[in-house]
Each structure stands twice: as C-alpha cells, then as structure tokens.
C-alpha cells in the first residue's frame, strides 16, 4: 500500500492520455479515475497499518546538493493527498456538468489541465526533498496559470494568469535559492534544521526566510496576495480546487512539513505569524470592498490562509494543518455553491446582478449557509475546532496576536454575511445593471432566462449538486476527527509537531465565534440596503495613485527615473547590424588585451 501511495501521482496519467485522445463519449469522464484512485489509495493507507515508506532514486539531479528523486509516504503526505483526492474528485464531477456548455475540445483541454494539476500536486505532497518539491511546486504553478487563463479570449484572463505566474516565480526563485544554498547532501525536508544543514551564511534564519517567501507566494500571504483575487478569472471549479482548497494550501503544507526549521529560527517564525495575522485582517477588510462574488470569496481564502500562517508562526503547525483540512472542505463547498449560483445565472458574478436567490436555488442556499457557518466557526462545526486550535495556540504564544486573530473573526462574519445575504436574500438586482457582456453562454434566444424565472426555481443539475454533499458533510463533521478522541493528532504524530488537545470551545474561541455571529447578523441588516459599487483593493490603490499623481512621492520618482533611463538606453539599439558587430569585435579585442596582458 505504501509503495502504491508513493507512486500515486502516476494514477492521473491514463486519464490524462484518454482525455487528450478524446476517448469516451463525455469529454473528461475518463479523467475521473485519477483523483478517485488517489483518494482511495490515500484513505486506504490512512485506514491501514500506516507503514511509512521512502522511495529514493539517488543522483537524479546530480548537480544539486540533494538531487535524489525522493518520494516520502507518511501520515502528513497521506492526509494531504486524501484531501487533494477527495476535493478534486468532487470538483471533477462538478466540472463535468459545469463545463458542459464549452465545446468538446475546450472540455478536454480543461480536464487535461486539471489532470496536470493533480499530478503535480501529488508530486508536491509526496516529495521527500526540496528538489522534487520544486518540480511539483512549479508544476502546480503552471497548471494554475493555464487554468486561470482558460477562457483566454476573455479580456483580462491572460493578464490574471500572468499575475499568478509572476507571484509564483518569486516563490519558485526563493525555493531554488534555498535548494542551491544548502550544503552538499542537505535538502531532505525533515532534516533541514540539523546543524550541518544550516551551516550556511545566514544560518537557519536565511533558509527559513527563503522557505517562508516561497510559501507566501504560493499561499498569497503578505505583499504577495495580489494574484489570488485576480485568479478568479478562471472557471469556478478551478477556483474551488486550486485557488481555495489545495494549491494555495501548499505553502502551509510546506511550512508544516519543515516546522522544525522554523522552530530553529524564532525571529522568522514570529515574522511569519505577524504576516499571517496582518493578512488575516487585511484579507477580511478587502473582502468587504469587493463587488464581485468570487473575488469576495478569494479574499476570504487569503484571510483564512493568514490564520494558518499565524498558527505555524506561533508554533502550532498541527493547528494549521487541521485548519487546512477543514478549510479545504468548507471553502471548496462555498466556491462550488457560488459556482452553482453563477451557473444558474449564466455567468453573472457581480454582486449587483445577484440577489434574492434563496427560493430559486435552495440547494446552493443551504450549502452556502453550511459553508459560511463553518467558516465563521460556529461551535460544533468543523471550522470552529480548527480555528479554536489556532486561537488557543496564539493566546499561549502571543496574546496580542491572538486577540487580533479573534477580532478578525468579526470581519469573517461580516464579509461572508455580506456575500450570503447579498446573493440569497437582499434586494432584487437592478435589471439595467445586468449587462450581457459578463454572460458566458452564447445562446441568446431569450434575453435572460434567469431574470424571467427568478421567482421559480432555477436549474440545479444533479451532477453539480451532488458533489456538494460530501463537502458539506466534511464541513460539518471534520472537526470530530480531532475532538474528543485526538484521532487526527495521533495519526499525524510528530510529522506536524506537538499538538495540544483540542477543546470543544475555548474562552477566546467562544468570544471569536460570538463576534463572528455578530458580524453575520450585522451584515444581514445591512444587506437590506441596496449594494453600493465599491472598488477592490488594487483598484482603490490605483485610484489613490491617479489622484495623487504618479510623479509625487519617491515611488513615482523612482518609476520616472527608471523609465527615463530605459528610454536613453534604448538608443543603443540602433538596429544597424554592422554597428553591433563592430561593438562586439571591439569588446572581444578589449577582453583579449586585458586577458593576455603578461
């Protein structure tokens, strides 16, 4: 079983091949085998005797300090793979119906990209050393770019994908630096903190910093948050799978994996915690400003990932991993039910175009409500246990940060309530605002069937509705994996560090849950007022720039200077080939003269 799990990333290849070749009547149906097998093998491993295994093919990349092809199977990777497998299986089934309006070639392309993503994600999770981790790391980044830009003919889709690529490049570069910086033989993810391996200029602090930068880029933390909201240009199943449940959690996974290194660098750990807390607060505030349904949820993901980072930074990697698992369930549920709304409303994502859909879409309404309550952390639901674990750890380690995190739950309630009540209750959308350019469907026989039948039920296809069920069950029940039995922490053992016993509700957690519910209730009142158009955070920053004038301040000055220098340097490129050759020959002559000087 262990060996089977180690090579689980290969399971996606047959499906990928069949999908690309166009075998089968329904494009993409063949791809279902990959995630189903991965989920089955990972869950089977977790239920079985749980023998850890290492597959090492030495000297795979001999020019790296540790260039072995190293697959590691242990409780942490199996748990993460189970999450990836189950969520991707739900999303695959969902996407079969969601992408039905695409042409068959587009559907095949979509599922092929998804397969590439799942394979890369499995490599990332199973990697035992940094070299193989980087392979999966860049692979998921590439798949993310391809899927964000899936509707490449739409304005902004390519740009959004490039933003993700740019942010990921920062992370990849940091990871690569860490790989080549380590002394020979080092690079195993579990032994990075040993004295021989941190014997580099800068020590453990530098290596930990590089890993935290890499993780921040992948998990949209701190200043590298910007790509995740833009990533919502992709299809909604992609947003649920890659940009909510699994890929963006890879940064958290990496830091949990290497938590011993972070423990050896307390300053970096504290900085990570501060970044996490600030991102949790900032993401919540930014979500309140969004006029787009999915972007609002994206900032919620940014904020929740901030909680996980804070948990890791404050020395509670198990709490972060626990929150990762529950967050995967309830955030995927939120995104998929949001997709159900968007699908039923034919591609309309603007909050102004949505509203009063409670009776029209009862399934989506229920699923979104469960997801919201789990996100806020209503006691008894999964999110409460994991968030409580983080809050308790934060309270122990740093009371100020703990209080800030608990306060951020108020924002959580506020923003998710704003989305929930805005979409399902709220006033009816102003019909003049519902413009057709957002519409994804090409059938324009009736003006907009969604508007005409708002009072009656809208279409909720079974294939779209059923994948929500396991996720909803997970969002409610996943917390009982840990409470009261401590099953999950026993399972993970020391792969996720020392775990404090989780309580049903801690005082701080209770206060946070009350705050969250207060925010939720407050937004219910506010949603009765018509929604105002508010700019998103990047747009707001742009507006500030525009009003302040680009040349004012040192930022503008630097930009101007850079542009001026570039303009002057561009004059070197005359396009006269002869001149280039002359300069080259003269340059070589100078080098030779200097080099050959006796």
């Amino acid at each position, binding site marked *: 079983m262990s060996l089977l799990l180690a090579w689980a990333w290969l399971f996606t290849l047959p499906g990928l091949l069949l999908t690309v070749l166009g075998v089968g009547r329904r494009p993409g149906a063949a791809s279902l085998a990959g995630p189903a097998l991965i989920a089955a093998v990972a869950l089977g491993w977790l239920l079985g005797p749980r023998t850890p295994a290492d597959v090492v093919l030495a000297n795979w990349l001999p020019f790296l300090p540790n260039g072995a092809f190293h697959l590691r199977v242990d409780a942490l990777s199996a748990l993460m793979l189970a999450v990836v497998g189950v969520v991707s299986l739900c999303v695959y089934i969902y996407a079969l119906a969601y992408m039905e309006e695409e042409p068959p070639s587009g559907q095949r392309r979509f599922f092929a990209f998804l397969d590439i993503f799942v394979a890369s994600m499995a490599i990332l999770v199973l990697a035992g050393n940094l070299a193989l981790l980087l392979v999966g790391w860049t692979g998921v980044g590439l798949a993310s770019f391809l899927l964000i830009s899936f509707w490449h003919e739409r304005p902004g889709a390519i740009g959004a994908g490039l933003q993700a690529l740019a942010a990921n490049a920062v992370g990849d570069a940091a990871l690569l630096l860490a790989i080549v910086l380590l002394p020979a033989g080092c690079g195993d993810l579990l032994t990075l903190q040993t004295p021989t391996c941190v014997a580099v200029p800068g020590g453990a602090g530098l290596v930990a910093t590089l890993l935290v930068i890499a993780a921040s880029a992948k998990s949209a933390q701190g200043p590298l948050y910007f790509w995740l909201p833009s990533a919502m240009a992709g299809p909604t199943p992609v947003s649920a799978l890659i940009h909510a449940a699994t890929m963006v959690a890879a940064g958290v996974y990496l830091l949990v994996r290497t938590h011993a290194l972070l423990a050896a660098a307390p300053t970096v750990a504290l900085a990570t915690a501060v970044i996490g807390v600030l991102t949790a607060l900032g993401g919540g505030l930014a979500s309140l400003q969004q006029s787009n349904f999915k972007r609002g949820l994206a900032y919620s993901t940014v904020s929740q990932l901030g909680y996980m980072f804070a948990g890791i930074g404050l020395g509670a990697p198990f709490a972060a991993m626990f929150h990762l698992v529950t967050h995967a369930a309830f955030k995927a549920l939120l995104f998929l039910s949001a997709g159900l709304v968007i699908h039923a409303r034919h591609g309309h994502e603007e909050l102004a175009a949505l509203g009063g859909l409670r009776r029209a879409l009862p399934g989506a309404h229920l699923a979104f409500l469960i997801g919201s309550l789990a996100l806020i952390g209503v006691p008894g639901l999964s999110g409460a246990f994991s968030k409580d674990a983080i809050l308790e750890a934060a309270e122990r380690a740093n009371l100020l940060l703990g209080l800030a995190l608990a306060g951020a739950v108020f924002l959580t309630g506020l923003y998710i309530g704003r989305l929930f009540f805005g979409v399902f209750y709220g006033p009816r959308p102003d019909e003049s605002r519902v413009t057709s350019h957002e519409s994804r469907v090409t059938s324009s026989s009736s003006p907009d069937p969604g508007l005409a039948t708002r009072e009656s039920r809208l279409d909720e296809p079974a294939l779209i509705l059923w994948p929500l069920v396991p996720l909803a069950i997970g969002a409610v029940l996943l917390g009982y994996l840990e409470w009261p039995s401590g099953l999950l922490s026993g399972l993970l053992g020391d792969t996720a560090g020392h775990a404090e016993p989780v309580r049903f509700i801690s005082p701080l957690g209770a206060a946070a849950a009350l705050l969250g519910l207060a925010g939720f209730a407050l937004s219910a009142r506010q949603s009765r007022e018509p929604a105002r158009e508010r700019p998103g955070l990047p747009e707001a920053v742009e507006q500030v720039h525009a009003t302040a004038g680009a040349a004012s301040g040192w930022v503008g000055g630097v930009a101007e200077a850079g542009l001026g220098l570039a303009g002057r340097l*561009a004059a070197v*490129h*005359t*396009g006269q*080939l*002869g001149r280039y050759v002359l300069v080259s*020959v003269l340059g070589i002559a100078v080098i030779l003269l200097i080099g050959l000087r006796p």
Partner: protein
Amino acid sequence: MTAETLVLATSAVLLALGASGVLMRRNPVSMLMSIELMLNAGNLVLVLAARARGAVDGQAAALIVLVLAAAEAVIGLGIALALFRTRENVDVDGPAEIHG
C-alpha cells in the same frame, strides 16, 4: 618556421579575414560565410592544441563547432531568405526601421 607557427598564423589570418568580412559586408550571405571563416580559424587552433597534447578532446570540440556552424548557417540562411522574400533586397541594415 615550425608547423605549429604556420598553423597558428593561418588561423590568425583566417580570423582577421572573417572579422573584416563580417564588419564590412552588408549582404547576409557574405556575413554568414565570414562567420564560418572565423569559426574554422578557431577549429584549426583546437585541432592543433589537441595534437600537441596528444589527446582527442580538442578534435571532438572541433567537430561540435562544425555541427554548430551548420545549424547556425541554416538559421541564418533561413532569415536571409525570409528577408529577401519580403523586401526584394538583402541589405542587413534595411530591417533597422522595425526597431522600437
């Protein structure tokens, strides 16, 4: 004058000829031929050094350079052909007008 000096001198002359050809010609085909001359000047020295050391690594390097030269000539001629098709003359300074 020993054989080595003779070969080195030949190589130097070839290199100078090639360099001046690249500098002065405006026809891409002539420029490519001049580059081949320079590459072969380098090859001569490589082979000579290999012989002097009694090893074959220099000769292997010379073979690689030959292959590289062939590949480069193919690309260069392809560009020259594309240029000629679109502009009816093959002056290499002609396309300078497309620079940004």
